[in-house]
């Protein structure tokens, strides 16, 4: 990366000698990035972020097919960059349908088929979910879209760098993944576009990226993306195995150290998901007591049901952000789907789509292991979370009510629990 931030500063589009080095670097990176996902280099479009790739895929593919139809199908658990892109098309006469997911976050092919209309021009279903780790059977879903002759886009941000991705095998027409998924620099991402796929460019101007994305390339970031992709390609099996094992430790050991927790998303083989300690209207009884399907075994599509190294858990009666702050004090970096921890002040739409009630989504904790996460890190987390949860439960009015045998979530007369708008 460094040469392109220093002496090798030329514009890759320039024909003179200063453009040559940067141009070769971009081409080499394109080959490395393509090789990681078994794609043709020419089918890789470099963008600045996965959000941009998703915007380009949704808007670009839909706009170029506007004469044929204006209906789009996506899953209810997509990243906001997909959901907001869909909304942005509505004033142009487009409509979209969101396919519901099962309680583990999976899109069922039947549900996808039911959402298809005669004027559907695009289907978008993410490969893996960034919050609950669910891996979709993209091969089957893409085949379904192909039967309708509709292009299929998949957001692979949470899949690439964790599971082996073979785009040719998946059979998708467009696929998003950022450099960050493979420990590359921020500021570079890719959109795979199958050869011959029509797309309208969103950034007009120059002829970079074969007319699909104008603008001078961020050569340093792209070079870093290429190098990171090459390393990932050789190391991925080793990393995946290590991350799977570490996550498995949390799945196995945390329930022994902390009560009233419920894992969300697909969880390990044979484990019976305990019901929530308390129920409320709006929660589905179907969640409770179900036997989890195998976690690491392969399914019909040949992919695991959950990405390695990803744990999502509800710690009942405790709010997510408060846990994050105390974990941070211990040097543990985690995330949450609670509304307090989100800038939008809205609880995670992913958890709500999985039929989790608001009260439980507020208590979510998301842990992501990386290639450098160690057993000592996991042990530290397993040691620190139970006292943090105990401390917060001690001051939680919900836990106090639960202990007294009352319903912590009883709605008082005259009050309704409505989602408030955005603030500030």
């Amino acid at each position, binding site marked *: 990366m460094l040469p392109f931030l220093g002496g090798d500063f030329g514009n890759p589009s320039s024909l003179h000698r200063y453009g040559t080095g940067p141009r070769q670097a971009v081409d080499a990176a394109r080959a490395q990035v393509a090789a990681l996902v078994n794609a043709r280099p020419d089918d890789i479009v470099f963008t600045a972020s996965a959000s941009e790739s998703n915007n380009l895929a949704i808007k670009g593919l839909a706009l170029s097919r506007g004469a044929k139809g204006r209906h789009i199908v996506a899953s209810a658990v997509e990243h906001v960059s997909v959901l907001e892109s869909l909304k942005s098309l509505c004033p142009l006469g487009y409509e979209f349908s969101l396919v519901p997911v099962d309680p583990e976050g999976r899109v069922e092919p039947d549900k996808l088929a039911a959402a298809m209309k005669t004027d559907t021009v695009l289907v978008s279903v993410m490969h893996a979910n960034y919050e609950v780790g669910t891996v979709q059977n993209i091969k089957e879903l893409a085949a379904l879209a192909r039967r309708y002759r509709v292009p299929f886009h998949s957001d692979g941000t949470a899949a690439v760098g964790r599971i082996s991705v073979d785009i040719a095998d998946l059979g998708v027409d467009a696929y998003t993944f950022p450099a960050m998924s493979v420990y590359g620099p921020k500021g570079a991402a890719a959109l795979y576009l199958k050869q011959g796929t029509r797309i309208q460019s969103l950034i007009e101007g120059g002829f970079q990226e074969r007319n699909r994305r104008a603008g001078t390339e961020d050569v340093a970031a792209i070079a870093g993306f290429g190098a990171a992709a090459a390393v990932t390609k050789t190391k991925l099996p080793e990393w995946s195995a290590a991350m799977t094992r570490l996550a498995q430790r949390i799945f196995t050991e945390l329930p022994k150290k902390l009560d009233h927790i419920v894992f969300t998303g697909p969880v390990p083989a044979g484990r019976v998901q305990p019901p929530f300690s308390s129920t409320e209207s709006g929660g589905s009884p179907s969640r409770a007591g179900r036997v989890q399907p195998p976690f690491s075994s392969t399914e019909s599509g040949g992919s695991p049901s959950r990405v390695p190294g990803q744990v999502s858990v509800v710690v009942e*009666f*405790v*709010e*997510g*952000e*408060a846990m994050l*702050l*105390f974990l941070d*004090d211990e040097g543990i970096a985690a995330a949450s789907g*609670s*509304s*307090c*921890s989100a*800038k939008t*002040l809205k*609880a995670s739409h992913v958890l709500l789509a999985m039929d989790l*009630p*608001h*009260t439980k989504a*507020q208590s979510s904790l998301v842990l992501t292991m990386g290639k450098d996460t160690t057993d000592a890190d996991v042990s530290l987390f397993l040691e620190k979370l139970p006292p943090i949860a105990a401390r917060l439960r*001690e*001051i*939680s*009015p*919900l*836990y*106090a009510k639960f202990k007294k045998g009352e319903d912590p*979530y009883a709605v*008082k*007369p*005259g*009050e309704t*629990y*409505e*989602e*408030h708008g955005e*603030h*500030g």
Partner: protein
Amino acid sequence: MYSEKVMEHFRSPRNVGEIDNADGVGEVGNPVCGDMMTFWVKIENGILADVKFKTFGCGAAIAVSSMVSEMAKGRTVEEAMKISNADVAKELGGLPPNKLHCSNLGADALHRAIENYLVKKRKAEKKDCHCPYCDTPIEASEICAPCKAQGRN
């Protein structure tokens, strides 16, 4: 994201707990918002002799509850009723803009606990019946129907 003072109250909140035989109990918030606060008050000779709380919520919500309890303790009922959510945020050295609404409900919870005490007191004194929230004359009921419909008790 948070000021040092907020983090300090979050890490070591004051007056956590419940008061047995409290003179007043007040509750605000809802799980959709993500913050719920319950306050208990003990009142002696018109002064808040003890204030305790329990809070389910983010760092700001916990710090706000703690600060309100400190600000109210030892004050008269009238003084405590004048503590506003804005005063609490100010005392904490400010709160992030997006936390000013839903996490900053501590004063409201305190006021509900005090109102709850006032209702009980009026009932005990068997004075002319007036709704404690809006002074509407009423007969047997503790509070007037419109206030009851708003969930007050």
